[in-house]
């Protein structure tokens, strides 16, 4: 007998074979049954691992799309709600305008106007309710703020909301706002922007410029800013202002303009607050005794030369506790801070201090464009040892300085990194009288972006101006390249509200904003969108906002918020009636010589523009013409001066072509030419009543109408009707914005639905059981099982013993 007798089949073998077959059929049947019961092919990941992963992916996509779909539905409803509210607002405005037009006519009487005023008063309440419309707990025009955004207070309507866009996700990496800002929808709030414009009121040399209307703005209020000439031979040129005389309103420049000023040249002071760079605040303690003019803290050593320059330091403990001084120099080698004005007492070791300021973020550089950094190579002289400085993780100027100094320390280069003396760029200094080469590394442009790419191999690399913009944490002392902001304070009036804000306790812009907010005058400090200046937001509708200096200070001047006739819109004049011009020249000016020139004021929307128009028309700039125009801020009047030769004629302004402009500007006058020699004739206009800053909101329009009706003044009623028309346009624009968003959402909704259907199809294909297939399989397996069972019964029955006698 062979050892491997193929063909020998034992009873146990056939039993095992049958059983194995049965088990297999049964387990297949079980899986099919499980799949049929669950309706899913993928009852366990192991059934199809790839399919499982895919199915989870599809399900995730469907889940996300469902969430996005809900967001779309919610946002659409929200925008619809806003649109409906604005529709009602628009209707209200229409009725108000009808009332205004009816009451502006001669048939109306004081009594009917009084009655209409009551009606308008009710409309205002209705308007406030509409503006406070909520959808699902959120006011549709309130931005991110909670509570009711519009509150009737102080004779006006205050905006307690904010202008945040509430972002919602409508797809992967697709987010959009689901609200319309109150400014866009209702015209709420207005912005007092930093601004200082003028025109030369006297002939000066090329190194100075005088505008008498700037007199009293405060000593050195404008030092550190640039002055840009708008008209005349120096037009378009700018110079840094080094000094400003408040007594005469005279600017002195760092370098002279090409041409002398004759008088009449228009100019702007560019209100760029230009903060210095800083590595941010620090708290610490003096590590050694020092005189009152310096403070030594070794913990600051290595932070970079000049890194704390221009920041204000407050002493927390010791003899100088509570005192504040500005740092004028920082020596990184020893950790010594030097102060512009010495403290009252000497420092003892252990005296604690703090500097509170936010580090200049890299995103603030280059006028807010920011820089994205890679690596830079710094070499100790041409061909010398070098260090590669990786700046990719740096987020602020402190990180940049530390990265440089760490790399230099690690590589043993005798070079130190700090800030330049102007505080607006970096500086690399060789500590052993060698030269420095800075080059780009890895094909980037980091050295150029940081302004330290060297052409040759200088002893000191003084980086160029990195032009940082403002942040909430910027110290006021950092402004104007370290000249800082006068902290005497601001006097703010807003309608019936008035407050004086002292900035003595303020360190940062955030502190300034908190103090202004705390003054309760319904005005809020904001950083202008370009990050270069501060703005004051008027948040009380129907009220006039004005800002002036206080206590002989210059805070308002330096911030560019100073109330002046020049900055008014022409429409603000004459209690909101504006200045009506006619087509063609509006007024004619006759000089002492009898010569005349005409001035066209069409399109001159501000008082400054009107002054410029007159000055330009006078041709004085190029010809050395005798007539100049300027504003007298003390009386809020326009002033024209004829400084020319005496021809015996009177100096006069007359209206042309039926224009009301000369009258409305209060300058339709004649100055009699006195006998004898009088070199200068001055035509002083009537004082111009001008509103402060008002918003163009629906509330202001109706409040104005109500007040005009109450005071029975037809011309103001007519002006209010115009304002209502303008406000209605704003509301229509707001509705258009909401409508456009809703349409966009509709498209998104369709896309999401299409996608979801596609993914559901894919998911179903992947994970759902194919019933036809499963049923067929089930039948198949059942047949197999039955056959196996039948044959097993037969096979196991038969044995030879059955047949043995």
């Amino acid at each position, binding site marked *: 007998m062979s050892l491997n007798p193929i063909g020998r089949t034992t009873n146990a073998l056939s039993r095992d074979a049958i059983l194995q077959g049965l088990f297999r059929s049964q387990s297949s049947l079980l899986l099919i049954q499980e799949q049929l019961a669950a309706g899913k092919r993928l009852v366990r990941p192991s059934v199809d691992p790839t399919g499982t992963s895919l199915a989870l992916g599809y399900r995730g996509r469907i889940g996300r799309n469902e969430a996005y779909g809900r967001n779309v539905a919610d946002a659409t409803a929200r925008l619809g709600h806003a649109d409906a509210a604005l529709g009602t607002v628009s209707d209200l405005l229409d009725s108000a305008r009808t009332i205004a037009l009816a009451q502006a006519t001669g048939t109306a009487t004081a009594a009917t106007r009084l009655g209409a005023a009551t009606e308008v008063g009710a409309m205002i309440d209705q308007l406030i309710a509409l503006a406070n419309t909520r959808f699902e707990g959120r006011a549709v025009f309130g931005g991110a703020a909670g509570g009711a955004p519009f509150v009737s207070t102080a004779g006006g309507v205050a905006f307690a909301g904010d202008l945040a866009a*509430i972002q*919602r996700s409508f797809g992967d990496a697709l987010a959009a706002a689901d609200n319309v800002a109150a400014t866009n929808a209702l015209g709420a709030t207005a912005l007092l922007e930093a601004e200082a414009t003028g025109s030369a009121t006297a002939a000066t040399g090329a190194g100075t410029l005088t505008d008498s209307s700037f007199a009293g703005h405060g000593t050195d209020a404008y030092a550190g800013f640039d002055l840009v000439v708008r008209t005349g031979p120096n037009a378009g040129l700018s110079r840094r202002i080094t000094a400003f005389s408040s007594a005469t309103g005279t600017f002195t420049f760092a370098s002279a303009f090409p041409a002398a000023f004759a008088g009449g040249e228009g100019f702007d002071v560019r209100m760029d607050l230009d903060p210095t760079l800083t590595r941010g605040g620090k708290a610490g303690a003096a590590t050694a005794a020092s005189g009152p003019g310096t403070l030594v803290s070794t913990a600051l050593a290595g932070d970079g030369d000049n890194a704390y320059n221009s920041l204000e330091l407050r002493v927390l403990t010791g003899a100088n506790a509570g005192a504040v001084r500005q740092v004028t120099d920082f020596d990184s080698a020893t950790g010594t801070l030097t102060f512009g004005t010495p403290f009252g007492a000497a420092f003892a070791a252990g005296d604690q201090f703090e500097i509170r300021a936010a580090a200049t973020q890299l995103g603030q550089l280059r006028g807010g464009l920011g820089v994205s950094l890679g690596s830079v190579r710094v070499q100790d002289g041409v061909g010398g040892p070098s260090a590669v400085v990786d700046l990719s993780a740096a987020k602020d100027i402190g990180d940049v300085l530390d990265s440089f100094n760490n790399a230099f320390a690690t590589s043993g280069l005798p070079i130190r990194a700090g800030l330049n003396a102007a505080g607006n760029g970096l500086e690399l200094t060789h500590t052993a009288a060698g030269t420095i080469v800075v080059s780009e590394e890895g094909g980037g442009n980091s050295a150029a972006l940081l302004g330290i790419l060297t052409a040759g191999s200088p002893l000191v690399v003084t980086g160029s101006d990195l032009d940082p913009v403002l942040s909430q944490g910027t110290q006021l002392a950092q402004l104007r390249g370290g000249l800082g902001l006068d902290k005497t304070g601001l006097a703010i009036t807003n309608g019936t509200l008035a407050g004086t804000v002292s900035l003595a306790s303020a360190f940062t812009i955030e502190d300034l904003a908190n103090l202004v907010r705390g003054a309760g005058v319904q005005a809020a400090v904001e950083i202008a969108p370009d990050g270069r200046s501060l703005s004051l937001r008027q948040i009380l509708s129907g009220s006039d906002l004005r800002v002036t200096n206080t206590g002989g200070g210059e805070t308002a001047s330096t911030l560019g918020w100073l109330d002046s006739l020049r900055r008014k819109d022409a429409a603000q004049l004459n209690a909101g009636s504006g200045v009506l011009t006619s087509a063609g020249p509006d007024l004619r000016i006759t000089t002492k010589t009898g010569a005349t020139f005409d001035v066209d004021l069409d399109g001159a929307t501000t008082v400054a523009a009107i002054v410029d128009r007159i000055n330009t028309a006078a041709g004085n700039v190029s010809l050395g013409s005798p007539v100049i125009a300027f504003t007298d801020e003390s009386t809020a009047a326009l002033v024209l001066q004829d400084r020319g030769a005496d021809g015996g004629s009177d100096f006069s302004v007359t209206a042309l072509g039926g224009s009301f402009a000369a009258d409305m500007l209060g300058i339709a006058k004649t100055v009699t030419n006195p006998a004898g020699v009088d070199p200068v004739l001055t035509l002083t206009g009537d004082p111009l009543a001008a509103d402060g800053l008002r918003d163009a909101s629906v509330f202001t329009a109706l409040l104005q109408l109500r007040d005009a009706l109450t005071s029975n003044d037809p011309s103001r009623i007519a002006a209010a009707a115009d304002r209502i028309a303008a406000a209605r346009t704003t509301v229509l624009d707001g509705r258009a914005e909401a409508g456009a968003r809703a349409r966009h959402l509709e498209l998104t909704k369709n896309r999401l639905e299409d996608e979801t259907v596609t993914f559901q199809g894919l998911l179903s294909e992947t*994970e759902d059981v194919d019933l036809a297939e499963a049923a067929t399989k089930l039948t198949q397996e059942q047949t197999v099982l039955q056959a196996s069972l039948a044959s097993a019964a037969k096979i196991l029955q038969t044995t030879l013993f059955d047949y043995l006698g």
Partner: protein
Amino acid sequence: MSLFTNLNLGLTALTAQQAAVQTTGHNISNATTPGYARQRVDLAAIEGQRYGNAFLGRGVAIGSVRRVLDGSLEGRLRDSTSQLGAANTRSATFARLEALFNDVTGQGLSSALDSFFAAAETLAARPADAAARGSLIEEGAALADAFRQIATNIVADRDSLNQQVRSGVEEVNRLASEIARLNRDIVASEGGGASPNAANDLRDRRGALLRELAQKVAIRTVETSTGAVNVLAGSEFLVLEGTSAAVTTVAETDRGSRVDVPAFAATGTKLALGGGELAGLVESVKKDLPAFLDDLNDLARGVIYEVNRVQSTGTGLVRFSSLVSNFGVPANAPLSTAGAVTGTPGGTTVRAADLAGYPDDTFNGLEVVVRTGANAGQRRKVLDFDGASGTMVLDRAFDVPFAAGDAFDVTALPFAAKDGSFDLRVTNETTGAVTTFNIEVDLDKSLPLPSDSTLATIAAEINAEAGSMVTASVTADGRLQITANSPGTRFSFANDTSAFLAAIGMNSFFSGRDALTIAVDGQLAADPARLSAGFTNAANDNGAAQAMAAIRSAKTLLGGTASVEDYYRGLAGALGTKSAEASDRAESQSYLEAQLEAERERLSGVNLDEEAVNLLTHQRAYQAAARFIATVDTLLDTLINQL
């Protein structure tokens, strides 16, 4: 030559056929006995008697009763049984893991994640709504429960597998001592090899026990000349002649989990586990379960960290008058220090040149958290630090040695923090004025060392800058505590670029540090107004809710290559693949086993038909032999009565 001789000859035939019938009967009786090898009677003609020139046969003799058996096939069968045991055990482990993870049917971790992020989207629509806040917190709790449930089940499974290892070892001991006893009996029965087939049935019994033993643990067998079988597991004797070696379990710790490993009781040598159920169990406990748990922990940690980073840097409807961090760290040690391995370290000693310069013992008691390389994600405690060379002594060596350049952090924080800063925003609740204090988290290793922030320096910086409004301190157990100085003052946080707040657990959404400990922060659960929906004090600011919802698809895991969703999909796919692989292996192994079993059955199994034929044959032979005796008897009768 005599007639009486012929009678005797007939007798031998009768005896032989009787024996053959008996053996056939024995085979038939044992047709279904497991491990039984059919027996055959070897018959041999008795040597002839010389009669003149002829040789006359003298009948038949019973040579031996032999088992029909292939020794090498038995060995292969045992090996296969061992492999099948291991494969079945692992396949069962994966089947249980798959059951834990019942996501393909739509209710599991994946749907919990889905609901959580959907709730964040809802909160983004209604940031100030109490119901939306409560719902996100509820969904967070459900997500935490889902994580914890899976993790707890894995740990429970691990414990039960360890229990199975212990009972498996008892079984091995029982089998080994039984085999040793059979060895003694066989040697005695067979007279030490004198009569090799004397103990056929004892041998069958022993063979069956060897199969059983092989199912538990892979063995090799050597049969001695005396008939005893020595059993080796690896290179150690489990059974030597008539004695067996006792086996017990020793507890090991592998990646933080307890593993019971079989070892010889006498020597303590670990049992070599080349196969068998024990190998499968140990493999499951050591590798399969921890690997899955590790992945699950990574996912849970990713969710905790990312959600907490948003929560900690956002603002709720209420701000804090007092807050204590969830985690504590040594107050005076650098919070987190990045380093990279220098040279090839051996064992527990790791040198990092970039840590040289710190004072001796700076990092003692902190943990090394590996960031890159083969050990990424692992943690070891630093027992000692030498500042001159930057050398650390760790509490335990890594499984795979460090490679030069592998990056790590030395920290006591449960999550990563990096160089950056955060804003402490103090709100005067009466006026609404917000004062921002920027707190530096300095972790850039500026020279001279040590220059980096510690918890104590951060508390000191808060006090120096904002001391007039809030007070910061470090509690006895190393937690950061911040308290507002006056009742109308509240504080919150913003712009945390360092992730310090999330790492130490200040104002967190989830507490805990992995899938086993994840839970919604108790204080948040108690006061849903704490939930950060926005980044500013404005009640309807939804920035943070948006940011939380965005975590779902942000690539934050696996070094910024996978989102939470991607990672989860990968996890499910990998589990499915591994499970399918394990069950495929078990299935193919069972085919092989069946094949070998069939081969053995073909050779050694009992075929009743064959036995029936044999029975008939022997019956006929017996009848013929009887007829022969009768014939001889007739002859004798003739001779005696005729004479």
